[in-house]
């Protein structure tokens, strides 16, 4: 991945968490402060970012690239109402692309990296399909958005588990550990619930391998955003999840902030405008701005 290019991916365990609204708002905000931003609608099969930006359904989209009718993503970019913000529209129909193959995915990631931009914001689909997870892991950081509801939290747990083990599988010499890990898997199914327990079992079998896996996972620091919070308790959920991730999953999550439930969001969607320019003084807009600033600050700290 090119060092100069920032790629942030936003995913969620389930639909309806407000992912697209947050992506569009962060993109519009950072374009206003002077970054060249490309919003990538990587929700293959359920694209709707264009609507959040007040655009008509684009005729040409990622499907052109996937079916090799277009080789240069630059030609698919659409201008938006904001000078430095461009949109790469996603595919509309699931048969177009939701099951693109590994090769295609590699080709797409390479092409994304060549886009002329300071920042790519990937709105990846909800759930944990292989494509979604690989986009998430290719980004720095990948950010999970959830709402304070049992179903959303459960899906986040599931997604974190799957991301974690997919990340392990990306080790270049994973085949050397496969037998050991699969063996533990099968004998200890119940403990698979808690990745941290799993690592302790690996540790007992082989401290060397456990050390390698840990070192490999050090780069996995997913961000967390809790959207549509209504109470103080909701707001605490992010910090609670960070604690839970660290202790029971062995994952250092980065809680980026909570975004308030507010009518302004609903109004902005109805008006088909990103929340941030449309209602800059609403509470959720303020929170999203802080989250974007935080992400930018972290990226600069990393020297990206």
């Amino acid at each position: 991945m090119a060092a100069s290019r920032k790629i942030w991916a936003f995913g969620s365990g389930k639909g309806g968490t407000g992912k697209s609204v947050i992506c569009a708002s962060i993109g519009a905000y950072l374009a206003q402060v002077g970054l060249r931003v490309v919003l990538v609608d990587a929700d293959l099969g359920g694209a709707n970012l264009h609507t959040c930006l007040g655009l008509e359904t684009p005729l040409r989209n990622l499907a052109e690239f996937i079916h090799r009718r277009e080789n240069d993503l630059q030609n698919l970019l659409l201008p938006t109402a904001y000078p430095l913000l461009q949109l790469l529209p996603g595919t509309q129909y699931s048969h177009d692309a939701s099951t693109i193959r590994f090769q295609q995915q590699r080709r797409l990631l390479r092409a994304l990296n060549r886009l002329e931009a300071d920042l790519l914001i990937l709105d990846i689909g909800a759930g944990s399909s292989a494509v979604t997870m690989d986009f998430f892991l290719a980004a720095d950081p990948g950010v999970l958005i959830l709402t304070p509801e049992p179903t959303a939290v459960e899906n986040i747990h599931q997604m974190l588990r799957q991301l974690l083990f997919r990340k392990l599988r990306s080790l270049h010499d994973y085949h050397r550990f496969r037998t050991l890990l699969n063996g533990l898997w099968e004998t200890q199914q119940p403990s698979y619930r808690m990745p941290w327990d799993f690592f302790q079992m690996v540790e007992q079998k082989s401290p060397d391998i456990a050390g390698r896996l840990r070192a490999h996972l050090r780069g996995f620091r997913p961000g967390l955003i809790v959207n549509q919070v209504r109470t103080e308790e909701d707001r605490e959920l992010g910090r609670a999840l960070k604690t839970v991730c660290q202790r029971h999953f062995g994952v250092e999550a980065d809680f980026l902030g909570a975004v308030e439930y507010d009518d302004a969001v609903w109004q902005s969607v109805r008006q088909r405008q990103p929340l941030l320019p449309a209602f800059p003084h609403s509470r959720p807009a303020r929170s999203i701005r802080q989250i974007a600033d935080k992400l930018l600050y972290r990226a600069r700290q990393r020297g990206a």
Partner: protein
Amino acid sequence: MNPFAGYNYYQILELSRGASPEEIAFAYQRMRQIYSPESLATYSLFTPEERAEILAQIEESFRVLSDAPSRRDYDAFLPSEVRPPSPAEAGPQPALPFEETSEPPSLRPMPSPSSERPEAEPPAPKPPREITGESLRRFREALGINLDRMNDLTRIRKGILQAIEDEDRNLLPAPVYLKGLVLTYARALNFSAPEVAAQQYLDHLASHKS
């Protein structure tokens, strides 16, 4: 599996060692919320038994840390600041030397580099067969380690080290903590089976009530 294996009471409550009483009370409430059966963050993660175990450890941590005298006793044998275990941050955790997971988790061996440990030079003094305060003292002195050095090695206050050697029951903490102290002591002197030594010391103390 013990979800807090390797954690001390501060780490269980996500506190720093210098936490104020208010911070302790706040952290305790927060942890109780995170692990309550109604908690959004964890309701689906644990079996009722696991949850009960976690909550019991949170209660125990708060009970000790919220009471100034017991906190002092507890602090006396904690190693200096240790980071919470996390695979993403720290290296591999040293495996717990205990058989029983019910031990206070903070009794891990001191992270002192092995080069600092007293090297057994020939002719090496032999660890005593019978473990008493007196025999521990003689062995320590035979190794040429004074109390200041011992304090460096173990981070146990000199007063407590002395009380262990004097078998001064008035100064020694409850057996469950004392075992950890003696374990640390024995480890610093490179006992081959420090757990056994610690248990012998406790047995000795129990059978010689003064």
